[in-house]
């Protein structure tokens, strides 16, 4: 039945559905998971890489899932990689155009809207297929502070405290619903509410946002353990001294250290795949910078 109405994006089916968009979302549900969590001092993105191979040249390549869009926004993508790269490029140009005209960083919501306007166009004009990509935008601006947005192939977007896209997003979403607590920090759990305030009766929050993202990701991953070959991590915070947004995509050594800290990585007596988690490399990585101090 759907066969007749799904070959062109620009037509509705008799039931009022746009099949091409639904098929695009279906493509995304097979892609690597990306989780985003909003904290009071930053936003974290954690993603599962799908393209893993010892032969990949990790040192030079850019990420597969997480990209910097501007100095105040990082994005995680899920779906068709080539489409995602095209959208990321468009977003970067849109951000610079705004900087050119207004001499200020583009507000996060406006960047999401620009991409959504583009995506919506592909559902209505031109007879071209939609972009098979969902994105999570994690960013900061002086108007609304830290923000997390999600957009999908239909061109719709919404703001979230915690959400996820890609494979197993239903599982991840329910885990996030259980464990997300308002007021959590990137590295500290949310403070326990006082007696009588909402949330005081429930379980106290155990995790900071980064740890929660790592734990939820490990539960939804296909593999049994996490390591830096399979995941990408990024946070965006405010630099304490300059008050400017600071995006940070973690290097593989930093991810290994993080996973070791949360005891989510491979056990220490196993030989790591590319030898990046040796003590010397871990100490030398990031020039001694502490992960939990922005």
């Amino acid at each position, binding site marked *: 039945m759907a066969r007749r109405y799904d070959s062109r994006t620009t037509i509705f089916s008799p039931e009022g559905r746009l099949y091409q968009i639904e098929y695009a979302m279906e493509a995304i549900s097979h892609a690597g998971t990306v989780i985003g969590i909003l904290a009071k001092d930053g936003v974290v993105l954690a993603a599962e890489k799908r393209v893993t191979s010892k032969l990949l040249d990790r040192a030079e390549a850019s990420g597969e899932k997480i990209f910097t869009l501007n100095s105040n926004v990082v994005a995680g993508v899920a779906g068709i990689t080539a489409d995602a790269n095209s959208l990321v490029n468009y977003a970067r140009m849109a951000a610079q155009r705004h900087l050119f005209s*207004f001499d*200020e960083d583009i507000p996060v919501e406006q960047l999401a809207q620009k991409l959504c306007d583009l995506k919506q166009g592909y559902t209505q004009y031109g007879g071209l297929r939609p972009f098979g990509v969902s994105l999570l935008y994690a960013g900061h601006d*002086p108007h609304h502070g830290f923000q997390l947005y999600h957009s999908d192939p239909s061109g719709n977007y919404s703001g979230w405290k915690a959400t996820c896209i890609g494979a197993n997003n239903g599982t991840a979403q329910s885990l996030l619903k259980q464990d997300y607590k308002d007021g959590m920090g990137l590295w500290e759990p949310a403070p326990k509410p006082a007696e009588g305030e909402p949330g005081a009766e429930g379980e106290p929050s155990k995790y900071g946002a980064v740890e929660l993202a790592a734990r939820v990701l490990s539960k939804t991953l296909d593999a049994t353990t996490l390591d830096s070959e399979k995941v990408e991590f990024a946070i965006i915070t405010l630099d304490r001294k300059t008050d400017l947004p600071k995006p940070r995509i973690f290097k593989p050594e930093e991810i290994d250290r993080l996973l070791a800290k949360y005891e989510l990585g491979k056990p220490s007596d196993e030989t790591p795949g590319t030898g990046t988690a040796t003590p010397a490399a871990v100490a030398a990585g990031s020039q001694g910078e502490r992960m939990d101090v922005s």
Partner: protein
Amino acid sequence: MESSFAITGKDYTLIVSDTSAAHSIVRMKDDEDKMRVLSPHLVMAYNGEPGDTVQFAEYVQRNLRLYGIRNNVELRPAAAAAWTRRELADSLRSRSPYQVNLLLAGFDVPSSRPALYWIDYLGTLASVPYAAHGYASFFVTSTLDRYHTPGASLEEGLELARRCADEVEKRLIVSGGGWKVRVVDREGAREIKLREGQA
């Protein structure tokens, strides 16, 4: 003939324009408002080529208003000034540039600071503590150099503005007709009287 000047203080910006509209030797009007309120915390005073002035000022006003409605948030003074400057700079290399000079007076809500920008028709932009355009600038710049202090109260600012107005009235060959004064602070932009008993 056209004069405008502006002063920043502790938590406000004052902006003053003369109110005379003349054609050659005839004063057509002495209560002309040579400012436009661009957004809740931004006021712009303009002078220059008649026609170009109002055209450009209203163009800026309507575009900033559209931005505010579309994005649910006011453009901050620095961003609005950058955009306005870009428009003038683009216009400069067109067939007929806008010959308009501007003072942009505002209050930056996120940082709680007053803002003042001097822009000329070439697309020069300067963020300044006080500024003037037109004939007034010949007299008022030295007055402000001598008597301006940063972080002054509104009363002190108004006193300084009166000093400037007095200087222009005393020394400029033609009368400016009167003065239109606005103050921009956290609460927004409002008109204010320079001297008691003035219209």
